[in-house]
Each structure stands twice: as structure tokens, then as C-alpha cells.
């Protein structure tokens, strides 16, 4: 699964883009993706919040992930 990482998420994973192989745990929904990320990188659990964007829109936990979606990991924003 191709993922984009920004801000502290990029630091946690060590790269801004990664084709992550979750093996049998491959997540089907936003909720499952968050869980899989937190399992693999415990640092994600320590963040103030963690959001997922699908095709550059905030996606709620129940959104299903399709193979050609652009999926981005959005740690707490701090613009302005």
C-alpha cells in the first residue's frame, strides 16, 4: 500500500513516501490502517491526533481503501 507521510509522521517512518507491505494484516479501511500503523510504529500512538486523507480529503474511519487511492498520513496540523 502506497502511503504519503508528512511532518512528524515522516520522521517516525523515515521517509515521505513508502509502499508499505502489511502482509496478512493489509488494512481495508481507514480505521484498520490507523491500527496497523500504530502497531508497526508505536510512536503514532503518542501523537495528539492522527488523521488519514484519501485522495487529498480527510477520511473518516469507515472509509474503505481502494488500491489506486492516494493515501496520506496526517499528524496534528500546525500551520499559521
Amino acid at each position, binding site marked *: 500500500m502506497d502511503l504519503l507521510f508528512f*511532518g512528524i509522521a515522516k*520522521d517516525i517512518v523515515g521517509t515521505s513516501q513508502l509502499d508499505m507491505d502489511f502482509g496478512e494484516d493489509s488494512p481495508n479501511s481507514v480505521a484498520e490502517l490507523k491500527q496497523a500503523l500504530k502497531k508497526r510504529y508505536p510512536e503514532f500512538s503518542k501523537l495528539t491526533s492522527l488523521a488519514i*486523507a484519501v485522495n*487529498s480529503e480527510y477520511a473518516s474511519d469507515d472509509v474503505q481503501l481502494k488500491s489506486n487511492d492516494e493515501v*496520506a498520513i496526517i499528524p496534528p*496540523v500546525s*500551520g*499559521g
Partner: protein
Amino acid sequence: MNKIIEIVQDLDTNKVYQELSHPSSGGICVFVGSVREFTNNEQVMALEFETYETMALKEMDKLADTALEKWKLNKVVIKHAVGKKEVQDAVVIVGASSAHRSECFEACRFLIDTLKETVPIWKKELFKNKSVWVSAHP
């Protein structure tokens, strides 16, 4: 065009009045966010801004539309800088113009408050001996 949305390397604060000026506007309110030298008494060397640009532009556009729906505005500007910014550099400019002043003040405040909550931009504070992603941890 009644809205101007931009993510740029360097912000030009001089243009904003002209961009918001409108024959039906009696009031223009602008907020500029700039780099402060101290955060909790620690000296900030610089800020580094990063963005998910396609999404950030979409969110800024939605934000402008929401303001245009909520208030009777003639013009809205939302601009954010990215990259490394030094003390006193402008990092964000939001503004609105309207017939009367209440609308542009309220809209301007709404724009900056909501931008900080929704737009995917991340700020890293660079101190002398460390750097911190702002708001990342509780």
C-alpha cells in the same frame, strides 16, 4: 475572482490591500502571522513549514467558500508560506473585505482560527539544540 488562495515560498504583504480592495467594500481586515523570537522563553532560530500541497489548497479553498457563505464578503485572501522562515518573516496572510467592518473582522478571525485546525501544514520550531514539530504531542 472573489478568492485568492496560494501556497508560496515567500509572502508579499504589500499586495494584499490591493487584492482585497473592492468598490463595494468599506472595510478590509487582514491578519498576518509572523515568526516570533521566543516560545516559552526559548529562543527560536527559525521555523520550517511543510505542506501536503494539493490537499492544503483544497482545504484553503473550502475555508474561503465557508467564509463567503457565512458572511457577505466581496473578497477573501488566504496565503501560506512554506520552507524556512526567520524571525519577523510573514508565514500566513488571511484577509477579507466587506461593505461594513463587522463582517470582515469576523471572517478574518474565522479564517485564521480554522486554517490552524484544518489545513495540512506542519511547523517545526528550530531551537539552538533541538527541533520540535509544533502540536505533535499532547
